[in-house]
């Protein structure tokens, strides 16, 4: 074994990712060979971290190999909770824009009322489970050999689509985060402003190509979740007979169609927001919030004066509907 030219620390995540694939795919066998050569250095105690991940000898299985069943089951579970559950909440929240920019803004405010807790919650319950699901998912894709051309059965088509949509959704989420999440600001994105939820999202989603790509992303994510729901039931042994699997597939289809409607409704609703009207509503809500928190409202002369607590004047239904053009809803 050659002494590493690369720092072992920089190689570890790579080795970890490739280890699953290594057992099953000739392409990545090469990667595994590369990884194991690089990691076998004396600078790091081989009995600890390295042994967890690095491709092993036949007599000394790695952590990942020994716990393959557990990892794949956690992968299956993570697709439902928290990743799948997050998708449902996310699409439902966004679809609230159909009830007006005020309705959506109040939900965004609720989420952002978590304050400094929002970032760790996002990472622990959304980003890290997604990254785990994606890492194992890519390893599974790399180890498989789709053959829908030779065996064009419905189940096989769904198998292939599950992998295709997984990769589409992965790329879409990265783009979506760069475009709208504040973390993407450094890359020229981060266009979503939680204080102007509907209007900033409407501006970002306005280009036709963005709308089309979002539709593809949403439909892919919804397919991946609803088909994943069906396979999860088989994986964990919830439905075992062919008849039960057929019934479960109908349930999955209904879930998929409903959730797809919610997701596409949210997209259409967001794109149809009247930006100027929405801004007026959002500024008014922002003013109220600041008053409640005792901060000066933007441009308010009453700086420093603590306002008496008063109920948030949620935008009246009339005000909400003015913010949304009625076409396309």
């Amino acid at each position, binding site marked *: 074994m050659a002494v590493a030219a690369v720092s072992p620390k920089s190689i570890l995540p790579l080795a970890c990712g490739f280890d699953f694939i290594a057992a099953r795919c000739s392409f990545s066998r090469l990667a595994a060979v590369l990884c194991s050569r690089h990691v076998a250095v004396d600078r790091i105690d081989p009995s600890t971290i390295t042994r967890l991940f690095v491709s092993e000898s036949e007599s000394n299985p790695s952590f990942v190999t020994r716990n393959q069943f557990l990892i794949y089951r956690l992968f299956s579970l993570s697709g439902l909770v928290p990743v799948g559950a997050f998708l449902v909440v996310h699409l439902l929240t966004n679809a609230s824009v159909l009830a007006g920019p005020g309705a959506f803004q109040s939900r965004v405010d609720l989420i952002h009322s978590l304050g400094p807790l929002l970032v760790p919650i996002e990472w622990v319950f959304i980003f890290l489970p997604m990254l785990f699901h994606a890492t194992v998912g890519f390893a599974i894709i790399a180890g498989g050999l789709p053959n829908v051309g*030779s065996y064009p059965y419905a189940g*096989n088509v769904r*198998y292939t689509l599950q992998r295709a949509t997984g990769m589409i959704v992965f790329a879409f989420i990265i783009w979506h985060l760069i475009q709208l999440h504040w973390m993407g600001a450094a890359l020229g994105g981060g266009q979503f402003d939680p204080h102007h939820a509907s209007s900033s999202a409407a501006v970002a989603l306005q280009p036709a190509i963005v709308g089309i790509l979002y539709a593809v992303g949403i439909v892919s994510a919804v397919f991946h979740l609803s088909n994943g729901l069906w396979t999860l039931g088989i994986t*964990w042994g919830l439905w075992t007979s062919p008849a039960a699997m057929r019934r479960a597939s109908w349930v999955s289809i209904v879930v998929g169609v409903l959730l797809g409607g919610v997701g596409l409704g949210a997209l259409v609703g967001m794109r149809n927001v009247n930006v100027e009207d929405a801004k007026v509503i959002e500024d008014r809500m922002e003013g109220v919030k600041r008053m409640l928190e005792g901060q000066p409202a933007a441009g308010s002369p009453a700086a420093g004066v603590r306002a008496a607590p008063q109920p948030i004047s949620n935008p009246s239904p009339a005000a909400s509907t003015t913010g949304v053009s009625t076409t396309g809803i």
Partner: protein
Amino acid sequence: MIQIAEKSDAASAGAKESDRIVRVRVLRQDAPGQESYWERHAVPYEPTMNVISILQRIAAMAQSQDGRHVAPVAWDCNCLEEVCGSCTMLVNGRTRMACTALVDKLLEENPEEIELKPMSKFPVVRDLVVDRQRVFRALERVKAWVPVDGSYDHGSGPRISPDEQEEAYPLSTCMSCGCCLEACPQYTKSEVVQRDDESAEDFDKRRKAAFDRGFIGAHAISQAMLFNSHPTGKMIADERLKAITSQGGIQMCGNAQNCVAVCPKHIPLTRSIARAGRAATVWAIKKLFDR
């Protein structure tokens, strides 16, 4: 080609059917690890032919379509009634038993030609003969048997109800043909070549280790469920569950469900897999809390 047609004319007393030629394209390979190549054959049509009888004619002619003298195409077969599982090959691109691949039906699908290829998930020994050691290694891993060996007579085992028999019988018809594995997108080829300086024992060990890293396959999971449902077989149920949840176990299943679609014995393989999934769930939770 014309030559052959004339010959067959003479042989079958000028019957009109004999004018027909069945064109066959075979993917051949002379030895393990060598390049494969296509070879065309023209076989005089006979009524009620199957792919095996086509291969028998090809062997008898020892001549390709362009008249070259060639070695007969090698293939595996035994029972000729779809119970032994030895003649699995890719007929027109799909895995199936050659003995029940009837030429008349194949010509309905594609009148131009019949395409024969060896299974793609197993190492080719020669032409259409493949090495299916891995199929049997997987059965060994899941202990697909009822353990009754001992030094004294254990007496008769528990009775099995007719309902249980009815559930078990379809699973017991598995003939290890490998169709489910060939069609499975999660089952990938594992070919280990013996090194020059390697003993047979070392090679066998290395090959088994390589097999064990890959997916065990639908057949083995189904057999594990068969023997776990048997009153005597279930005495080592935990050992089987341990095997199907180890590396390459049931977790590798991607639910494409091709296995059940191609199974020549119509074994409810996906039901077995889902039941194994359920058993594995319960077993894993028990293991977590009982240790």
